[in-house]
Structures are given as structure tokens and as C-alpha cells.
């Protein structure tokens, strides 16, 4: 668990981070969201002491990290950078093996771990002897992720990890990212300026402005219970899409009609968000999709029924 309290960092006369406090539970993904200059990256970098805070405290698993040896601390925290930061003079294998080498793992253990990660990240073994410049942007980013994960750190810090990728590649990696079981166990703090990315990947979002957290909460909380106009305006532009992303089928469950035509397609989980559910209509070309809740109740619903449920759900939300 990460516990941050009253963090302050001043550069010259500007307060980059102005008294930030938050907690992240084990296995949770928190997105620090905001425009450039809002202090989100500075906050992130204080967590592995790339930047030393002026005041405030940071505890990771009840240990005050400001009292730890910074190098030992960093070896235990995975870090993924926007432009991947791979060493251009190291091969892919050497890049991934940096932290194991610092931790003085033996070669067999390192090799075993690298092979394991390669499979999980859909990387080819042939890439191991290549240099980063010989790979595509998506591949480089996966290797950056492998490098951060190799020593299996409980905490992962990600600074705009997908910012340098094109939209298609980014969407693909987002999918892989969510599917990777290796990440599900980790406590992740993700910095992004991309609202959609935050909504798609994070359990909770801390929306920042001028060095402060304006609101922290689940995507739905931010969307439907914005604390002030700043939050509302920030999300306004892509509102509909964000809502589709934020609302899960389980949220709409009570508004969905029971019964309906049973089809043979497999039932989908109610943990699915509305956006993904809508996509199913496109892929399956069926009139209806089936969803199954945690109590194994199955409902078959059509596109129109889904949209009607959404409209009902919206009217029940507290007015903005």
C-alpha cells in the first residue's frame, strides 16, 4: 500500500506539487491525470525519489521511503517511461536484465525470467539479440515494460507509458495491458494526460491542477459527481465516450429487461463496460448479446434495450 501525505515540491518560485495526499491500495491502479505542468509527473518521480520532496511523507508498505537507500528503493519499484528509455547500446536481453544484474541474480535465473516475460508480452525470442533501434515503437514499449517487471516489483510507476505510440498501437497495448495477469497483482500509479487512457486503465483517478489534486475517485464518480466545474469541463469534450467507458453492465443491471431471446453465443461478464458491450454488437452481428451477472443470471439484450437502460441510469444520477 502506498500512502502519500502532504507532499510539497517547489522549483524556484513555482510550487510544482502543493500539498498532495492520497492512498493507493494493494493491487489498485491509480491514474494521475492532468494537463502538462499540473505536477503529476513530479508527484510520480517523488515516489521513487528521482525527485526529492521538500516536505511531506511517503510510505510504501508502511516503510518511510525517504529514510531508505534510494538505489535499493528504486531496484524494488518498476518504472516505465514515455520514451521507453531503453539503453541504445544494450541488446534487448541486456536491457531487460539490468535490474537482475544490479540485484546480482545468477544468469540462469535471469534467463528463465526473461523467457517467461517474453511469452507474456508477445515478444519474439529472436528480438533478444537485437538493439532497441531495430524494433518498432510498440515493441520497444513492451520491452520497457518487461524491464520494469523483470524483478517482479510489487509497485509499478508509469510515466505516460503509451504517450509516444500511435493510436492503433496504443489501443492494442491497452488491451494487452489489461489482460496481463502479471499486472493485476501490482500496485500501479500511472501518469497520463489522456482522459480515455485514465478511464480505460485506472481503478481510480486523481485529477490534478496547479500542483493539487482537484478530485480523486473512480471514473464514474468523476463523471457523475464532479466536485466542481474544473472537473466537469475537463471531461466534457469526450463525455459520451467516457460515460460508456465508466458505466459497467452491472450498473445498468436493474434497468435491463429480464428474459429475451436466448442465443447460442457465450454470455459476457457484467464487469464489462458499456463501450465494450456496444462493440460486441458490431463483432457478433447478432441482434442480441447475453450477459451474466455474478449470481449466474443471464439476460439477453438488444442494442435498443441497452441504450434505454443507459438513459434511465443517467436520469437517476444526481444532477450536475
Amino acid at each position: 500500500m502506498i500512502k502519500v501525505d502532504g507532499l510539497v515540491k517547489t522549483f524556484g518560485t513555482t510550487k510544482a506539487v502543493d500539498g498532495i495526499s492520497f492512498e493507493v491500495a494493494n493491487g489498485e491502479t491509480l491514474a494521475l491525470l492532468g494537463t502538462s505542468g499540473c505536477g503529476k509527473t513530479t508527484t510520480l518521480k517523488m515516489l521513487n525519489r528521482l525527485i526529492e520532496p521538500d516536505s511531506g511523507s511517503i510510505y510504501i508498505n508502511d516503510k518511510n521511503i525517504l529514510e531508505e537507500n534510494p538505489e535499493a528503493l528504486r531496484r524494488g519499484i518498476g518504472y516505465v517511461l514515455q520514451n521507453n528509455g531503453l539503453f541504445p547500446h544494450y541488446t534487448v536481453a541486456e536491457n531487460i536484465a539490468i535490474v537482475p544484474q544490479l540485484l546480482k541474480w545468477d544468469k540462469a535465473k535471469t534467463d528463465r525470467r526473461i523467457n517467461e516475460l517474453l511469452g507474456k508480452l508477445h515478444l519474439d525470442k529472436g528480438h533478444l539479440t537485437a538493439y532497441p533501434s531495430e524494433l518498432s515503437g510498440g515493441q520497444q514499449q513492451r520491452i520497457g515494460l518487461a524491464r520494469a517487471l523483470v524483478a517482479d516489483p510489487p509497485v509499478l510507476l508509469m510515466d505516460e507509458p503509451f504517450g509516444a505510440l500511435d493510436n492503433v498501437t496504443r489501443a492494442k497495448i491497452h488491451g494487452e495491458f489489461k489482460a496481463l495477469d502479471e499486472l493485476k497483482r501490482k500496485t500501479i500509479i500511472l501518469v497520463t494526460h489522456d482522459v480515455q487512457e485514465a478511464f480505460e486503465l485506472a481503478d481510480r483517478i486523481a485529477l490534478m491542477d496547479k500542483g493539487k489534486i482537484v478530485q480523486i475517485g473512480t471514473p464514474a464518480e468523476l463523471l457523475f459527481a464532479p466536485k466542481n466545474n474544473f472537473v466537469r469541463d475537463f471531461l466534457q469534450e469526450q463525455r459520451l465516450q467516457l460515460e460508456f467507458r465508466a458505466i459497467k453492465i452491472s450498473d445498468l443491471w436493474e434497468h435491463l429487461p429480464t428474459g429475451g431471446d436466448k442465443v447460442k453465443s457465450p454470455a459476457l461478464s457484467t464487469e464489462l463496460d458499456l463501450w465494450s458491450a456496444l462493440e460486441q454488437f458490431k463483432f457478433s452481428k447478432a441482434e442480441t448479446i447475453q450477459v451474466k451477472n455474478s449470481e449466474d443470471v443471464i439476460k439477453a439484450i438488444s442494442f435498443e434495450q441497452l441504450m434505454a437502460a443507459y438513459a434511465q441510469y443517467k436520469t437517476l444520477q444526481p444532477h450536475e
Partner: protein
Amino acid sequence: MNEQQQPLWGFMAQQADKLAAQTLQHIGLTFISLFIAVLIGLPLGIYITRKKSLSGLVLGIAGVLQTIPSIALLGFMIPLLGIGAKPAIVALLLYALLPIIRNTFTGITGVDATVKEAAVAMGMSKWQVLVKVELPLAMPVILAGIRTATVINVGVATLASYIAAGGLGEFIFGGISLNNTNMILAGAIPAALLAIIFDFLLSLVQKLNFKKIKGAVKIAPVLLLLLSCLYFVPSAYGSKLTAGFTPEFMGRQDGNLGLQSKYGLKIHTIVISDAVMYKAAQEKELDVISGYSTDGRLKAYDLVVLDDDKKIFPPYYAAPVVREDALRKFPQLEKTLNLLAGTITDSVMTELNYKTDYLHQSPERVAKDFLVAKKLYRVDRGGKSGVVRIGSKIFGEQYILASMYTMLIKGYTDYDVATKTGLGGTKIVFDALTNDQIDFYPEYTGTGLLAILQAPTKTVEQLQVSKDSTYNYVTREFVKRYQLKWLRPIGFNNAYALMMRQKQAKELHIKTITDLKRYLDSK
């Protein structure tokens, strides 16, 4: 003696031993200084990437060092470090510092910030970040700096011969003094080749891929050290005394060649420039030097001239050599220049030289004082009808004479004067004259005979009977060959002389050159 007709290849083959020795010394000088420069420059360059506030200062100082003319820098070194390899190496390393520090700094600051951040974030210590990330990635830039420094050093190392550190400069400056093109080329071509070869080899190292550089970094210091050691390969044979001769003296019949053939003198010899030779003798760096009999420093540094008992240094007249077309263009010129004829005796010239060389009076002041005393001085008429161009070689006596002629021409005629003083050697000043860059300069009949006309040995031996026969021969030949006229002699004789410190000569009972040889041969 007639080396001009000998092909360059022949000269180089004949001098192969010397050439090899000088080349090895040259490579050695270049790489010793380079090695030390890397030892200093690399850590300093790294340090200023950590303390950026100091980078301006450090790079500024290294930049200023770079702008000091090489000869001047070598000159500064002599009072501190004497002559020989030490000051040369220090001067060279100072030149090599800037490119090495600057490229180390640029290379390391140029490493992608994301990569550096990744290295730190992964838990590398500062030292690990430097060694595993910054240095390998900055290596191509650092190597480019070392490459620049190498080429600079190969070039500047030619000047090391001025302060007796050897190298290919011995041939180059000897050749310039002796008007011997083959000799210049025998030094200049290998020096240029060295620069090109090292530049090429280092460009290959630079292009090696990242992997191989890791290995190259380890062998580079070893290789540098090996190359540095070359300097010590041609270590000269030892002898009880050390002689320092000018490049010109080394190659002249009335110089070292005569000492060897007529006296059979064998002495450990280093080549050194006229400018620092006397000082080195006074400071006991050298025991025997080749000087000029009228040199003021003879008196200043308490040196004594060894008696030339076999007469290999015949006395020569000093007189202005003028272009014939200049004499036609400026009808009053000959008469004016001849005002000085016969007025300066040996002792007067020595006294005048003493004033400039030792009392550090300006040549202009010494010249004016003399003319006033001789009642020859007249106020500048501010003439505007044509400009007479005066040349001079690069030592005190010539500056004084050039000043005197300037004042005489300005005072007695309506001509204006442009001086091109300090032309570095007989070849340069003589070429300037024949190519119509100057109208006249003071020359010595012996130099005209041996260095310019390159008269055959037989003729020289016949002429050495008297000063006048030399003067007549030179006058006749110069008109015939170059359309240049020797005016009337100024009066003093300037001849080569071997000199020692008075005290040492007395202790060793050396009065003549034969005494010197006897002392050296005795066990």
C-alpha cells in the same frame, strides 16, 4: 653541398636514420601529451557535467589556452620547465585539453535524458550510470575530441624542435633556415602523413559499433602508452657535455658539418631555436651552444667564445641586399642605405644587441640612440612619394638594423616605409625578396654564399681566405642570378661561434674547439 639537385627521395634515404628517429620522437611527443591530456581532460569534462556552474569557467580557460600562439606557449614554458621534452609535452597537452574537455562535456550532456533517468530509476548508482550509460553513449563524441586533439598535437609537435624536444620540426625549421626545400619536405610530408594516418585510424575507432567500443576502451590506454614510449626509442648517445645548435647551424658547412669533418667533434647534440638557446646555456641545460659572435647575450649571460683554431667559421660582412628594380624606382635609396656603411663595428653591434636582448630596450630606441650619437638622425619628413618595404629576419640584430634603415629613409628621403620584420628564417625572407614582397633586407655574405647560392665546397674553400673575396663573389652571383644588389657592408662581421659558460670553460680548461674535442674524447 648541392642538395637542391638531389631528389627528395634521395635526401630522405640518405637521412633515413634521422628521419626515423624524428618520426618516432614526433609520435611519442604527440601521444605522451595526448595520454596526459586524456587523463586530465576526461575527468575534468565529467566533473563539469556534474557541476554545470563551473563548465563556463573551465571551458573558457581551456579555450584561452587554445588561442595562445604555440610558439609563445612554448616560450612561456621555458622559465618554468627549462627546455627539452618536458615543456613541449606540457604545451602540447594544454592544446589537447580543450577538444577533450569540451567533447566529454558535450558528449555526456548530450546523452538522452530519458535514458539517464531510466538508469537512475532502475537503481543504478552514480558511478554505474557514468560507466554503464553515460560514457559508452558519449564515447563517439569523446573519441571525436581525442581525434581532433591528436591532429592538433601532430601539427604543434613540429614546433617542439624549437625548444630541443626533437620531432619532425628539426627538418622543417632546419630546411627553412638553410633554404633547403628537400629538408623542409622531409619533415613536412611525414608530419602531414602522421596527421592523416592518425585521423583515419581514429575515425575507424569512432565508427566501431557500441559493442566493440567496450573492448576498445580497455585497450586504448595501453595503445596510447605504447605509442608514447616511442619517444624514448631514439635516445641519443650520452656524452659528458650537451650541445644545443640551431637548425641552421646543424646543416651548414660553416657549422656542425664543419665541426664534424674538420674537428671530428662528437657531442650529444639537441636542436633548439636561437631564441632560447642562450638562456638554456646560462641555466646549465646546455653546455655548448652555437651563437653569433656579435650577440648581446654573449655579454649578458657571461658566456665565452671558444677559439676556432682550425678556422671553420670565417667572418662575414653584413650588408643590405636590395632588388635592382627597387634601386631604379627609388633613386635616393642606395645613397641613403649606404649612410650606415662602415659605421657599426663588431663591438658596437654587440653593445647594441646587448641593449635589446638583455636590457630589453626596444629596437627603435636603440636604433635612434645610435643614430643620434652618430649625428645621422634626422626628423621624419613625412614623405609620400612611394613606399619602401623593409624586411628582416626574426632576431634582435635584424630588428635594430631595420629600424635604423627606416629612420634614415624617412629622414633623408621623401619615401615612406613599410616594415615586414620577423620573417622566420633565411628562406622565408629571401623568398619574400625575390617574389617582390619586400625591397631589401640586411643579409650576411656567408649566408648568401652557403645557404642561398649553395656554392660548391671547392669554391667555398677558395673564398674563405678573405672576407672581401666572399663579398665580391656573392655580389657578382646575386646580380647575375637574382637581379639583387649587395650594397656596401655595414662594418661588423657576424660569424658563428661556439660558446660555453665562462666558469665551466675555465674549470675544464677549454679555450679552443680542439680543447673541447680533447676533453670529450678523454675518458
